[in-house]
């Protein structure tokens, strides 16, 4: 668990409604309104994707939606920037291998 529950300046983390997201098939509890990347970091997920050519693990780099290092397949759409995409109830999130795939859904 990498969530800061009591921040030295911002103080204790306020209560927030919970939503359930599914990460590689496993249900994960996330705080409503937070970004996917924040929820995944809180679970300690070691990497979000693996690169196309060398299959190297990648996770958060810039954290502000520019670098595209944190992209994952979300609800069947590859290349979604998880650091700027908020969680939603029932969201299906998959670790993206290379380019990922279209998840078989229309």
């Amino acid at each position, binding site marked *: 668990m990498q969530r800061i529950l009591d921040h030295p300046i911002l103080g204790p983390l306020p209560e927030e409604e919970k939503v359930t997201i599914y990460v590689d098939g496993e249900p994960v509890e996330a705080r409503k309104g937070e970004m996917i990347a924040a929820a995944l970091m809180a679970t300690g997920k070691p990497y979000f994707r693996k690169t*196309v050519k060398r299959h190297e693990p990648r996770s958060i780099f810039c954290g502000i939606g520019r670098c595209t290092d944190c992209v994952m397949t979300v609800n*069947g*759409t*590859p*290349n*979604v920037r998880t650091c700027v995409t908020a969680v939603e109830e029932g969201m299906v999130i998959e670790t993206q291998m*290379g*380019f*990922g*795939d*279209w998840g*078989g*859904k*229309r």
Partner: protein
Amino acid sequence: MTHAADVLVIGGGIIGLSCGFYLTKRGKRVCVLDSGGFADGASGACDDMILFQSKKPGINLELTFESLELYKSLRAEVDDNLGFANLGGMVLIENQQELEIMEEFVSQQRSYGLDVEVIDKREIHKKQPFLSDHIIASTYSKMDSQIDPFAVMRAFERKGSSYGMKVFRRNGVVGIERIGNGDYLVSTQDGTVFQAPIVVNAAGTWAGQIGEMVGANVPITPKRGQIIITERVPPIGETNLWSAKYLVTKLRNDVVVDLNEDERSMGLSFAFTRSGGDTYLVGSTREYVGFDKGTTIGGIRAIINQTLKYLPRLRDVNFIRAIAGLRPSTPDGRMLLGEHAGIDGFFTAAGHEGDGIALAPITGTLLAAMVCRDPGDHRLDELSPNRFANL
């Protein structure tokens, strides 16, 4: 300063470089002259198709077969795949009227030796699971191939230069004059003069302006094609895609296709091809706007909206770039290839519109044969620039 050569090729796009390459291989000393940089014109702002399905049975289809073979030997000669791929292509049919027209077109193409068929919804779904349900049928040809235009141009230029071809860039032709012994003097912006008994006008969209310098009528009109390029994404289907709309309007001018007024004025139709860089090139417009090769918000928006109609799943995909090229179009949809009557030694090889990549090697090969005075090939009479001489 004056450069002497056997042949001067004006235009350093894929057609000019092909002409230069094959002429050099035939033992000619060739100078290729271009006003811009490498791939500045239409050859650098187009898709990469060797597309059979768009060709009317006849000379264009025949030459495409020959071009594909020449691309094979070129790849062997330069020991490089040149981004060649063979994904096959589908032309999407949206209503009964289109189906009838395309069925007839396909049977004509088949009788000409093209491996193409009409497939039903079940077959479509296997090849393209994400296509919109409103597509009622499709054509499929496994022959449709592609090759990277930049790689081809680099190959022509490098290999040609190793055989002695010279390429001069960023130095436009400003005048052509004929002297007493029949040679042409071609003067350029920086004052350099080139002299040769043969001039080849391969200036693409700008070939009309070069033709004017010697009094040759080269009726080529720029047709602007805008294309957007997506981010790198996984393949969304097996094949490349086109809409039947464009072909149908080309084949039957009495048919009104389902487009709104804006889309119609832009000449919008769907072309969806996967590039070697794992992106998709998505087009395109066909606009008559003179020599303006800018992209427009309206054009980009129309291409995006059209794409989502066919492939709704691409909704969240980013596009990273938009480009536009000026396709050199002719009044009858066929290129100009040959010597101008009454202007000995002045040849034109231009006017390929959207077929420049597909037809580049065969154009250069045929042009070189004409310049070398090989026995005439009567199939090519219908491509002669003299069909426009008296217009």
